[in-house]
């Protein structure tokens, strides 16, 4: 039985395609959706798409730095989610809705 290495049968381009697809979904979500919660989720999607490509590159180049970078991205994603949700809560308290257009009130 030939050795089936998942990383040889599924090539780098598969990962990159997956990453690109998820990234585009996330980006479309950020650009088009109006709900702040959905927006935050879409940002998460984009970050995770990047993480996938980091890990894939790391494996294929035998370079650990890509995987280290993923931890940073996850940390930042957590921080960003905390701030974003706090904003969402305060927006909700003020307007009883979490629509992105209320952020326009922050305009000077």
């Amino acid at each position: 039985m030939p050795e089936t290495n998942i990383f040889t049968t599924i090539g780098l381009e598969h990962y990159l395609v997956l990453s690109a697809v998820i990234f585009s979904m996330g980006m479309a979500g950020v650009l088009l959706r109006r709900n702040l919660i959905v927006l935050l989720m879409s940002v998460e999607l984009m970050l995770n798409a990047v993480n996938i490509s980091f890990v894939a590159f790391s494996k294929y180049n035998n370079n650990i730095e890509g995987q280290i970078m993923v931890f940073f991205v996850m940390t930042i994603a957590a921080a960003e989610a905390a701030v974003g949700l706090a904003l969402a809560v305060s927006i909700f308290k003020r307007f009883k809705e979490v629509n992105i257009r209320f952020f326009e009130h922050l305009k000077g």
Partner: protein
Amino acid sequence: MSHEALIAILLLSPLVGFILNGVRFRSSNYILAGSIATGAVFVSFICSVMLMIDLINAPVDQRRLAANFFEWIAVGGFKVNAGFVVDQISSIMILIITGVGSLIHLFSIGYMHHDKGVTKYFAYLNLFIFNMLILVLGDSLLTMFVGWEGVGLCSYLLIGFWFSDSAKAAAGMKAFITNRIGDAAFIIGMFILFFSFGTLNMFELNALAPTTVEASWMGAATLGTLMLFIGATGKSAQVPLYVWLPDAMAGPTPVSALIHAATMVTAGVYMIVRLNPMFVAAPNTMMVIAIVGAVTAVMAATIGLTQFDIKKVLAYSTVSQLGYMFLAVGVGAFGAGMMHLMTHAFFKALMFLGSGSVIHAMHEEQDIRKMGGLKKYLPITHFTFLMGWLAIIGFPLFSGFFSKDEILWQAYASPRGSVFLWIAGVAGALLTAFYMTRLMALTFWGGSRVPKSVHPHESPAIMTIPLIILAILSVIGGFIGVPHVIGEYLGHIPNYWADWLDPLIRKLPETGAPHTAAEEWGLMATSVSLALISAFTAYRIYTNNKGTNEQIAKAFGPVYNFVNNKYFVDEAYFAGIINPLVKQSQNLWMYIDVNFIDKTTHVISDMTKGAGSLARSFQTGNMQQYAMYIGLGVVVVLTFVLMR
């Protein structure tokens, strides 16, 4: 008391009066305000008298009491102290200022009692006295200039005292602006003197003055003194800057007496006497001064012939008499100039206050055509005015006679004099006698032309007492300076005045043969008899003669009109200087400021604003739009990177 303390009290007393009245300027309590102000000036007068006594008791070479309060400016080699000096010249001035000033303050209590701004009025008067004292006591040109500007300010404030009348406010501004032209020249004169001699201290300047006369027009002494003299023409109302003084009569009458007759307008004469060694070194300047003085004396006197406002007549008379003083200092007769300054202060203050009494009696009427026969209603005013009249026309043995006669004699006999200056002086004396007699006749003598609705009444004692004191001074004031020829004849009366001033006056270099006493008697007789004939003619014409003015106007035709309109000098200034200046300023404003500078800045600001609003249109606040810009940016950059 030490003389420093005396000088300090002398200076500060009016300032304290100004502050006391100034802080309660809304009050209309005329007795309190008047008492404070008069008291303040009277304290100064006492100090002046005490200083004068000290000065007389001192030996001749130590007659100089200095008080150096503090160092005012010290920049490199340029040092000015707040130093004040009482010497032979300034002691006379402070006596006149505080003495006549006290009397005029006293008179004002009666004259201004119905005015709502009476406290403010007295505050201004005290401020004026303070500045005038700084002017005459300051030991450097710069300290003098502080007072010089200060009296100008007070003059402006008091001319425009009734500023709700726009004509009076305009008269104040006219005085201020005209004076400013002179002041600019005064400053230039200070620059020149400092540049050439390295000091502004007047005593040092006098010591440094060249002992040989300067023949050139461009020498430092000539140019510097000429500029100072232009400053004096502004302050002392000489041709060509005299136009403000007649208009200054818009102020309250005691102000005219104090500022525009007795004290401030004589500042120019004082300044020249103070710096006489410098002026003696500049014969060209002296010539200009003498000619300007003579021209002013005659020209103002002719205008005085045709005026009908009692104060305007006196104003032109003042300009004319100031011309005499400048004629005197211009021919080097500094003592005679100072003497006339003093006697003029007495009799002109007297006549202005007398006119104030008349105006008060006539319920603010100033037109002498509506007066006449006031003698029986105003006996005291009439009698004192009569004394002033005798003094100004130079009736023998009255004060004006001695001073004016000395000036006329010096105009002829001085090494810098000439027979033409004498003729101009006599012509002025003739005209003076005529217009003053005309004023007396139209106001006090002849039939009454007073409207039925007006009931003239004599003024209260508070107004007549100053008149009486000034009348006494006008009569006897001349005896301290009796010319030598008359003194010898009257029993060896020495000329105290000339002896007193002698140490500070630089002698003119003598030329030619000395003049004889016979010459002096002859010229004196000529001028006095001409003046008396002229006065008698005026008396005959104007007393009991209705319709005279029309007849005279008709007889002289266009000449009368020309003189009556003051030679159209104001109109000429407007046509020649003011209107072109305004026009050019408007053009500059229109073409340079509005159309160029403003437009340029507007274009720049519009561009900035346009760029700003363009950038602003991207800043919608819509975060998704921002995200899209980021996305588009990434696409563009990636495209660029990949396609390269």
